[in-house]
């Protein structure tokens, strides 16, 4: 059988793959299979439902090249302020041991790059495996083909690591790079971890980041995942984040999306064991010309599972955001509880947010709720505050802060909460000053 017809777009990626292949570790056959899958799926077409409101034409038309290892190791980068006791850093897809801070990691916590996957290590398989299905499978496959330094975070059973691990993923430098960060997290039974996934970089050039986060929580484990998407405003960021949550285990996601030119996040959570729980809150700020697209999918696959999805979105200027939240309660997942809320605020004319909550229920003894709103600041509240002497911009900023406050208050990591809070405040001030 001949290979499927390729567009010039995938040709760019094939060239990159061919060039990179000799240096890639792991199974060459699996790398090739992964690339073949990407080539087969190609970039999404305009009629693909999962990409209904997000066009990747802009991304397709850009040229990027993988960063050479030495160039990435030599690049001077601005390291963000520490958000945890331990740190690991990827620059343009390459692990920077010189910037890591892992010396004090407690016993039973391993953080390493899978530079040399161990043959006996079942987890090593995760390096070149990609999650299938959904609108971002193509990019997950591309990542599986080309990821240079997959990062593996393992917590042994019963180990409770109270200190936060700050994973810093940087796309930077004067050359337009494509990079494929892959973060694999394995929590043993009854273990606990706090991990910040921090995407950042500079705007000296355009970058394309296709990230994969692959999380597995064994029974009774607890993961606090803090996601901070603060990519440069010239970065295209596409991320596939899959998590499987075992019996009695709990996944808390605190997502803050503040950066990127265009970003897409697919967050897929499977509540696989009895009484598994997912508590997901997030905030996205689409100002300037930013385009932020978030798809959250929670699958209740076992009895007594619980989930919350609570996202707040703000858009301004030519910003555009998409939120698609879906909860599926599968057959047999009785006594489950699925709650979903998507509330959105349009700060200026011209901004747009498309939200779509979905609920599919195949069990009869469940509690589910969902709701979505999109609107502007309440004029009655604006007038009330102004009638007490607050200026228009003070009133707008108080009401916007009140709107985002509900999810901000859920970020139970103080330095991150204040960072997001301050960044948001700064944006609001600039936004309000720009108004005529």
């Amino acid at each position, binding site marked *: 059988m001949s290979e499927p017809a390729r567009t010039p777009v995938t040709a760019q990626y094939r060239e990159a793959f061919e060039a990179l292949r000799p240096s890639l570790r792991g199974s060459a056959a699996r790398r090739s299979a992964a690339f073949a899958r990407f080539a087969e799926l190609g970039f999404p077409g305009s009629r693909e439902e999962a990409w209904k409101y997000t066009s990747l034409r802009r991304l397709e038309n850009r040229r990027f090249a993988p960063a050479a290892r030495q160039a990435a190791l030599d690049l001077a980068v601005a390291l963000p302020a520490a958000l945890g006791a331990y740190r690991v850093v990827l620059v343009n897809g390459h692990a920077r041991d010189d910037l890591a801070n892992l010396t004090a990691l407690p016993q039973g916590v391993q953080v390493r790059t899978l530079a040399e996957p161990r043959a006996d290590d079942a987890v090593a398989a995760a390096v070149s495996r990609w999650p299938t299905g959904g609108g971002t499978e193509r990019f997950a496959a591309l990542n599986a083909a080309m990821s240079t330094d997959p990062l593996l975070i393992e917590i042994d059973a019963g180990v409770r690591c109270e200190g936060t691990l700050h994973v810093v993923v940087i796309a930077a430098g004067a050359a337009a790079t494509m990079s494929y960060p892959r973060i694999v997290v394995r929590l043993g039974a009854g273990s606990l971890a706090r991990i910040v996934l921090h995407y950042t970089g500079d705007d000296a050039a355009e970058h394309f980041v296709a990230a994969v986060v692959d999380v597995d929580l064994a029974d009774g484990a607890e993961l606090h995942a803090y996601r901070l998407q603060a990519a440069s405003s010239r970065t295209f960021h596409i991320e596939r984040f899959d998590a499987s949550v075992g019996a009695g285990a709990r996944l808390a996601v605190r997502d803050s999306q503040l950066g990127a030119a265009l970003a897409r996040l697919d967050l897929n959570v499977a509540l696989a064991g009895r009484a598994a729980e997912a508590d997901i809150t997030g905030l996205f700020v689409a100002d300037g010309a930013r385009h932020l697209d978030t798809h959250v999918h929670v699958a209740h696959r076992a009895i007594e599972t619980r989930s919350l999805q609570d996202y707040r979105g703000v858009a301004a200027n030519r910003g555009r955001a998409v939120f698609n939240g879906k909860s599926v309660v599968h057959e047999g997942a009785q006594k489950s509880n699925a709650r979903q809320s998507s509330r959105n605020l349009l700060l200026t004319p011209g901004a747009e947010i498309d939200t779509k909550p979905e609920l599919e229920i195949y069990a009869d003894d469940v509690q589910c709720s969902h709701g979505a709103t999109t609107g502007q600041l*309440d*004029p*009655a*509240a604006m*007038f*009330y*505050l*102004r*009638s*007490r*002497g*607050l*200026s*228009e911009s*003070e*009133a707008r900023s*108080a*009401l916007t*802060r*009140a*709107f985002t*406050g*509900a999810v901000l208050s859920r970020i139970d990591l103080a330095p991150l909460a204040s960072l997001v809070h301050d960044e948001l405040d700064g944006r609001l001030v600039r936004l309000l000053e720009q108004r005529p």
Partner: protein
Amino acid sequence: MLSIRDLHARIGARKILKGLNLEVRAGEVHAIMGPNGSGKSTLASVLAGREGVDVTQGTVTYQGHDLLALPPEERAREGVFLAFQYPVEIPGVNNAYLLKAALNAVRKQRGEAELDAFEFLALVRDRMQLMQMDESFLSRGVNEGFSGGEKKRNEILQMALLEPKLAVLDETDSGLDIDALRIVSSGVNSLRSADRAIVLVTHYQRLLDYIEPDFVHVLSDGRILKSGDKSLARELERRGYDWVKQEASAA
């Protein structure tokens, strides 16, 4: 202090105020009474600067300046206070923040220094005592989940804190039980002073048993038909509004 001349205003295509005249001097308490739909709340809205009410004719002069030229926040800073008929619930903006921001905006305008956290708290505690409000109010969202009576008390608390020169109370008595009415009234009475004017907009004379006005005006169909002293309020209570209209159309 306040001089309203030939005021015409409409909301959308509907003409509501049709040539209203009113003079209010410092130290006076005026009651504006009238049936529903007579334009009482529209008058309060015009004075506070609510959007959506269009003044088509006439002037409103406050302390010698054109009040209508000022945006709502500048009116507030110049000492105009509107106690809302329906105070707005604003979850997520806490009362303490609003009170402090409002107070400091007014103080700044008066050329006074902003209060620090301790001075502010001492002052607000004192005023809350007057309104018999619990300190837990401060950390709650503005009017969030407040009962009708709590909302009105909160309005008067704000007034007590901001010490306006001209206070317009829009149906502050509506929805109050007798205890809440007493508390609100004593709050207002404590603010009566020689350099402050108060305009009470009300449908019922009940409030005037507690806050004694110097002047009572009957507003009907967008105009003041009759003015008198507090005895006019009692007469209105006894005879209703129709006789005033008849008297006016006969004249």
